[in-house]
């Protein structure tokens, strides 16, 4: 593996972490949107708020991580991507602002009308943000982002079959991950019926995601032949692994083994993303710009690599500490074993 590929690979680890953790946070917002009326959906919304409240900001930083590594180590590709796809990126950024601010502020507000408005802003932006990010991925993967500043078409680069597929899949995957994650949280925090509701949603979303994914292969064969060739060629073992992990996750859900289902679901999503990376290797911007062509000078790559290793050594324990703090908090609820006092 060349030095540029190593740096890009580490960036991709950040992208996977963003998809898994922030993706689940987005998905939680989607379920907030679909939770029903104020009274009926209150318990689900509470659970969602408890689950993502203390961690969403940290999860969100993975995206910043991806952006900064990209513009330092693959500056030209970043400039091409940001300018050609500026419309979905701007809309995704607006969505992130609306989602973060609305979620944060809703907690500090008690008046019903204002809470409803902020809740709606949180939920709707949780739906549109992953859609636009998925559309961006679709634009890159289908070879619609040529190198050069604003060299691609600013509309068709993200309004095309592959981008729409990417956007829809992103939304579905976020919703699925959130439902699976919330099953386990619901069981820890409260009565079993809440977990059952999210289990039903997880199974339903899994079925829809599978169907869209299957149909997506036909879309890709017609719209992005190079990506299709990569996915069914070199990337096939990874895709098969993803399908198997997905089926195992569903089986575990059926058996109500929520914690293990989380891991299997995470693996399924991770392998889908790796499959995309393998399919378009060695290109950053297929079919124009390879990883080595796009890479920054060696001094920059070395500095970035050192920063990623040292920074990672500080970051990973801190993240582990954050998550452990909440798991033990949840565990206390589980030990008490009593329903929430409300």
């Amino acid at each position: 593996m060349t030095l540029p590929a190593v740096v890009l690979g580490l960036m991709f680890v950040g992208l996977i972490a963003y998809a898994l953790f922030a993706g689940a946070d987005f998905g939680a917002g989607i379920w907030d949107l679909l939770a029903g009326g104020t009274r009926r959906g209150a318990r689900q919304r509470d659970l969602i708020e408890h689950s993502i409240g203390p961690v969403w900001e940290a999860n969100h930083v993975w995206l910043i991580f991806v952006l900064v590594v990209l513009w330092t180590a693959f500056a030209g590709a970043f400039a091409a991507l940001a300018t050609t796809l500026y419309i979905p990126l701007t809309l995704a950024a607006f969505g992130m602002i609306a989602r973060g601010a609305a979620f944060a502020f809703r907690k500090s507000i008690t008046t019903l009308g204002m809470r409803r408005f902020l809740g709606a802003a949180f939920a709707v932006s949780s739906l549109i943000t992953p859609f636009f990010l998925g559309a961006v991925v679709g634009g890159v993967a289908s070879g619609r982002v040529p190198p050069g500043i604003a060299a691609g078409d600013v509309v068709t680069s993200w309004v095309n079959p592959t981008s729409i597929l990417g956007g829809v899949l992103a939304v579905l995957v976020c919703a699925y991950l959130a439902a699976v994650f919330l099953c386990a949280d619901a069981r820890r925090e409260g009565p079993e019926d809440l977990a059952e509701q999210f289990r039903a949603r997880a199974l339903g979303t899994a079925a829809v995601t599978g169907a869209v994914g299957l149909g997506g292969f036909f879309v890709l064969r017609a719209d992005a032949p190079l990506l299709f060739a990569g996915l069914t060629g070199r990337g096939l073992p990874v895709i098969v692994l993803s399908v198997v992990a997905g089926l195992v996750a569903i089986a575990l859900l059926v058996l109500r083994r929520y914690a293990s289902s989380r891991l299997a679901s995470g693996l399924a999503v991770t392998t889908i993303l790796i499959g995309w990376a393998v399919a378009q290797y060695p290109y950053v911007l297929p079919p124009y710009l390879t990883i080595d062509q796009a890479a920054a000078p060696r001094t920059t790559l070395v500095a970035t690599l050192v920063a990623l290793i040292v920074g990672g050594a500080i970051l990973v324990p801190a993240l582990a500490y954050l998550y452990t703090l909440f798991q033990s908090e949840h565990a206390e609820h589980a030990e008490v074993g009593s329903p929430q006092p409300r």
Partner: protein
Amino acid sequence: MEQIELVLSDAAENLLPARMQMAVSLGWHIIFVCFGLALPVIVVFTEWRAHRRDDPALHELARAWAKAMGVLFAAGAVSGTLLSFELGILWPGLMGRFGPVFGFPFVLEGFAFFIEAIFVGVYLFGWDRMSPRAHILSGIPMIVSALAGAFFVISANAWMNNPTGFTMDAQGRVVDAHPVAAMFGPSTWPQWAHMYTAGFMVTGFTVASVYAVGMLRGRRDRYHQIGMLIPLTIASIAAPVQIVIGDWIAGNVARNQPVKLAAMEGLYRTGTGVPLSVGGIYYDDRLHYSLEIPWGLSLLVTRNPNGEVVGLEAVAPDLRPPVNVVHLAYDSMVAMGSALLALAAWLGYMWWRHRRAPRTVWFLRAVAVSGVAAIIALEGGWITTEVGRQPWIVYNILRTADAVSPAPGLYLGFYAMLAIYLVLTVLTVYVLRRLARTHGTAAPQEGTAAQQEIDAPPSERPGQEDAVR
């Protein structure tokens, strides 16, 4: 050929809206940066004092400020995200060409921001779940990562002012990038010190002003008195320090960006024994209606009344920044900074002679407006350094007009952003006012217990008493 002209016209059409979009989103974000830098220090200090003295009022203040910190951090985090998108969306000519040189500190900032976000969550969530000692210690990574993060971002901005750490070939391509060296150009340390101290002034005076208003409305209890005095004292220590740093940075600008200094002072002719000009309007290559302090500028930047100062005439007209904007922004900063220094001196004198804060209503009124004054000074300083660098985005190397994206329709983003930020501003102020009025309101990062606090009737809130204990 036609294609090229089309691209150029798009770029020209995009330039002003793109600059305005960057200016508004950065000018908004920088206020929250100040709170991110200083509020953790003030909160952790207050919490520590509260435990040392076992003082309920201090406990309550620390908790109230921590909640405000949660809201301000969320607002800063989301507005910072838009900025990282905008760097690529609006200024691809900068990022695409020089990302390998000056993008690196942003990688480090990414990690600093990560640590900050994690420990803001831990600190706010862990209030009643950790021992006081462990909780105060969990505040320290938050403080250190904010300090480091500001250094990394400022070093990137300082690089734009004084680019170092690379060489270019004849075609202007970067051939030899040294990203670590690029972080330590001549402007980095003074700019960082200036920003960090500004953080304490903005935060200290703004928080103090909230309690000064409360006292003016008759709430003169101990809670309000301490709530005003702690942040005010911290800001008052920062104010004189900032004057010294200001002198340092002015000398640095005079050496490294003489045209920016000339614009700050509205100085056209290069000369010796140059006066310091206050106020006035610049037109016809001259500053009109300004108050002049003889030899002032020469003394300030060369330490010699007859020292030579470079004027705007040193460069061609199209290489000069818009003088009035820079000059008036700079003067606003100096005026506000001086007024805040006077306020700090007032407090310092009374403390020295009488061991207490001034009791007159005029002092409270002055503190009540000091927060706004500090924010004006902050924005004035930021406009000075950013507009003063124009027409360059990378000083003397890349023009802003050549860095902007030519993507069609880009300018529409500016109007969309304006609308969103208007709503965001109204909501932020609304939520902060609610936090100030109701003590039971939860901060965004707080978990389960906070939600129960909202739902439970006030008499049954367990969290508050736990905090006092």
